């Protein structure tokens, strides 16, 4: 069965001020919001700029705001909104390239700063090991589920868009980058590397800029728990400061 859906999309381009344009499209009732956006592009306006690749929440490219909330539209069913009009906007706290596309350059530089790799280090130890399905995730098991060999973070930028500190302070390192530092810290025992990572997370625009709104964790579609990572980093860094204070 197909349903008619109204999409109000924020359009802008280098030479066009941001404004909303309304489109009506027909989609299957089983479709996700990304399918509806793609329908707008396919049948209404081929100039629409939007990012998408994998359509199953692995690549992290399609993140937008749907009715003011950050989502990966590839896994949000249109049925969730029961036919009501959808307002689709690009992520906040990024520069807009055009329409729904934002500039991810600085985001990826911060992701890279900790040398965060998306494959897990346990990769080689897993071969032939039995798996255990735990059903649902919590912050502790989410990073240790044995058979997921990629990190949970898909680098979509949703947490930065949801973060109120990011809204004000563009120099803030951002929840995703800090969560990446935390994961790298978990993976290494090398004291020099640990020191480097903690110093990267430290600083006026590092973990201390967070004001505990926990919006990143709330918005994250992939159980990365950035706020929890920030808190854990604070604890580690405070410990390090005290050790340094007493000359150790």
């Amino acid at each position, binding site marked *: 069965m197909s349903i008619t859906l109204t999409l109000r999309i*924020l359009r*802008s381009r280098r030479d066009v*001020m*941001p*404004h909303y344009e309304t489109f009506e499209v027909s989609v299957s009732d089983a479709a996700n919001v990304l399918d509806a956006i793609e329908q707008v592009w396919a049948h209404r306006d081929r100039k629409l700029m939007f990012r998408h690749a994998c359509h199953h929440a692995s690549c992290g490219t399609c993140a937008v*705001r749907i*009715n*003011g*909330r*950050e989502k990966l539209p590839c896994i949000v069913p249109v049925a969730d909104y029961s036919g009501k009009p959808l307002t689709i*906007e*690009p992520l*906040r*706290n990024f*520069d*807009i390239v055009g329409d729904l596309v934002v500039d991810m350059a600085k985001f990826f530089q911060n992701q890279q700063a900790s040398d965060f790799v998306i494959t897990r280090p346990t990769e080689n130890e897993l071969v032939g090991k039995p798996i255990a399905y735990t059903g649902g995730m919590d*912050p502790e098991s989410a990073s240790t589920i044995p058979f997921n060999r990629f990190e949970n973070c898909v680098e979509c930028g949703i947490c930065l868009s*949801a973060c*109120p500190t990011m*809204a*004000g302070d*563009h120099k803030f390192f951002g929840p995703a980058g800090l969560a990446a530092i935390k994961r790298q810290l978990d993976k290494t025992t090398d004291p020099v590397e640990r020191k480097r990572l903690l110093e990267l997370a430290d600083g006026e625009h590092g973990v201390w800029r967070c*004001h*505990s*709104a*926990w*919006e990143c964790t*709330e918005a994250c579609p992939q159980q990365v728990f950035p706020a*929890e990572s920030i*808190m*854990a980093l*604070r*604890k580690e860094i*405070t410990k390090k400061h005290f050790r340094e204070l007493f000359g150790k």
Partner: protein
Amino acid sequence: MNLYRPDLKRFRFLRWFDFRSWRLGMIAYILNRVTAIGLVLYLYIHLAVLTMLAQGPSSWDPFIRIARAPWFLALDVLLLAGMLIHGLNGLRIALTGFGIGVRGQKPLFVALMIVAAVALIAGALKIFAG
């Protein structure tokens, strides 16, 4: 007003007031901020008022009579509300920042706000009862 406008980039913090995205954490964030600004302003008003003490009883005692008026006491209740919200929410932020109660921060916030509400009611009754 469209907050995506590039010329509003310097006022990005206006995005805090996009009510559509407010969840519990954002409400806590905004409450903390609003009460913080209110309390800092109050600190200086308070110090200015206390200066009257240095001028002796002739300027202080008439003020105290005004301060005992019901409308003034209502302001006191507002002040108390600000202190309770900021203090108890701040307690959550401090605790979680040291790695305590991270997993239960949301119920912790709700519980602390209930404590704040109860304390506020008790305080208000006491203030008005004299």
